């Protein structure tokens, strides 16, 4: 079974530039998550999709971050304009959807490492 695919793996940009990350979840997984992990901290949820609808984006800085999941499959996370504090690893994850029950497991991609200079 193929895992969660992310690209690019590494990106260096200057502040005020834009960047986009792509994620392809495990086939058949209805739930897709984007997490931000700053060095030395645990991952923080940015946005969660159920199929192609947003169920939680309460911690997404909407003035500069946006995400979409077209056709309920792959997803793109965009940052525009980037700030120095956006330097982090952006992790995509997916899980099967269980009606009104938490999933038994969640699978993470290898992450996209962003450095803003």
């Amino acid at each position: 079974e193929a895992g969660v695919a992310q690209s690019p793996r590494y990106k260096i940009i200057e502040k005020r530039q834009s960047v986009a990350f792509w994620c392809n979840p495990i086939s058949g997984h209805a739930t897709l998550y984007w997490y931000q992990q700053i060095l030395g901290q645990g991952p923080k949820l940015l946005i969660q999709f159920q199929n192609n609808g947003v169920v939680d984006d309460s911690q997404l800085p909407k003035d500069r971050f946006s995400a979409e999941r077209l056709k309920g499959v792959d997803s793109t996370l965009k940052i525009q304009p980037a700030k120095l504090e956006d330097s982090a690893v952006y992790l995509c994850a997916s899980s099967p959807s269980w009606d009104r029950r938490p999933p038994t497991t969640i699978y993470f991609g290898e992450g996209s490492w962003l450095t803003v200079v």
Partner: protein
Amino acid sequence: GIQVEQSPPDLILQEGANSTLRCNFSDSVNNLQWFHQNPWGQLINLFYIPSGTKQNGRLSATTVATERYSLLYISSSQTTDSGVYFCAVFIMNSGYSTLTFGKGTMLLVSP
């Protein structure tokens, strides 16, 4: 929101030693998972353990949901066990579940 606290924040072991990592959470949870993040950043599922005890080789985990804590035991540690161990809890919100992580325990196993 729910608070997830892990201890200790850092741990250094000699190869062959045993260790216990702790995760406390501030409210009732629907599910709890332990992850290992390797030096390349990949998060690997270790245990899905909402309650009770599970074992997988040299690793085992126990969750006491009524007392809001979970423990991860590593026996006969190896250098490949190095990395960051995260506890994460699922909370149900209006029909969907959200996963919240602790800050992790960084483990270094020296030869």
